[in-house]
């Protein structure tokens, strides 16, 4: 009879141990799930802060700048400045700016507009000078009796980052006589040049450096970005 009692006691002990084991495994599972959820929530909070700040500032700023540019364009087109036509201009500019302001300023860093505009205005006379000098050389090539042209296509990889700077570089290359941009395929430019000398002058990369200087890309540090990041970092540190 002591043996049956002993067997019953051992049975109970084993059952208690099984329960304890399942409970311990359940606790471990809940603990892992809770830590991963907290990490996911932290990431989501960070994402909303970054996206919200950028969208709020760039949305309104883009709308206002688009409206001003469209008003200036309207005033240029219609030479009449009486109240009726100006009010028509304001209404039309408001409608068009509301419908397409996210088209014009799609990916611009907030706060950089004035510097970019000033540098762009300083770039245009240099481009005009380049066009005039290349014009003389291409005219000499085309008008000489045996026409010593040597057409070649060159490919080069660019260090510029945003699509507006690519388009500005492609436009400048095409505007300069002697070179034509054929294609841009993910950061690789294909350019057709008339002569080896023209191709060499494009190869030095001076135009690319100047375009990068306009848009402040390619080894520049933006003070505005550091200021933005420091504010978000303080917010996060407070939340932790």
């Amino acid at each position, binding site marked *: 009879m002591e043996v049956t009692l002993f067997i019953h006691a051992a049975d109970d002990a084993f059952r208690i141990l099984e329960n304890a084991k399942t409970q311990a495994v359940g606790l471990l599972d809940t603990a892992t799930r809770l830590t991963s959820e907290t990490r996911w929530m932290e990431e989501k909070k960070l994402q909303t802060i970054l996206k919200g700040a950028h969208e709020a500032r760039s949305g309104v700023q883009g709308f206002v700048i688009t409206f001003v540019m469209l008003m200036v364009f309207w005033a240029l087109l*219609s030479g009449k400045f009486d109240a009726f036509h100006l009010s028509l201009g304001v209404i039309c500019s408001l409608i068009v700016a509301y*419908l397409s302001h996210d088209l014009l300023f*799609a990916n611009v860093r907030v706060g950089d507009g004035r510097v970019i505009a000033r540098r762009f205005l300083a770039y245009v006379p240099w481009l005009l000078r380049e066009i005039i000098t290349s014009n003389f050389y291409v005219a000499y090539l085309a008008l000489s009796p045996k026409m010593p042209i040597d057409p070649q296509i060159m490919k080069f990889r660019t260090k510029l980052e945003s699509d507006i700077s690519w388009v500005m570089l492609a436009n400048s290359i095409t505007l300069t006589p002697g070179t034509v941009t054929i294609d841009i395929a993910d950061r690789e430019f294909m350019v057709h040049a008339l002569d080896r000398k023209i191709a060499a002058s494009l190869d030095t990369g001076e135009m690319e450096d100047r375009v990068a200087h306009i848009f402040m890309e390619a080894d520049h540090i933006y003070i505005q970005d550091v200021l933005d990041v420091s504010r978000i970092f303080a917010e996060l540190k407070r939340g932790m």
Partner: protein
Amino acid sequence: MIGKSDDIIIKTIARIFVPFLQLYALYVIMHGHYSPGGGFQGGVILGASMALLLITHGYDELKRRLPEGALIFLGSLGVLIYAGIGLICLLLGGNYLDYSQLSVILGVDAPHARSLGILGVELGVGFTVMAIMYSIFFDISTGGILPEDQRREDRAEGER
């Protein structure tokens, strides 16, 4: 279905051009009495700007800005404005589309009322022409099949 163009120069330049194109079209509509232009011409330029967006950015981008319902609504709205102004002139006691009767509502003398009435009907014409031009372009380029139906057909063919 019109996919977006993978040439980045055209995409960027079209994106920068379109607001100025649309403002130029509205300028042509509003100054119809003073320089060549008017409702129909402005409407064609507006439709062309929408067609430019369709070619370069694809149908998905344009569905956000100009869905099919809005297109039909704009087309009918233009006709409503035109006929409505004529009807208002009739109700105020003149002939159909006799704009001088509008001076009662607007509070200006008869020549100014005629000028504003013509501006109103030109606006209506502009809306309708834009909707119809864009709709014609879209129907001819996709063969009249909406992209949702096209996708469903493609998926059915893939399964088969």
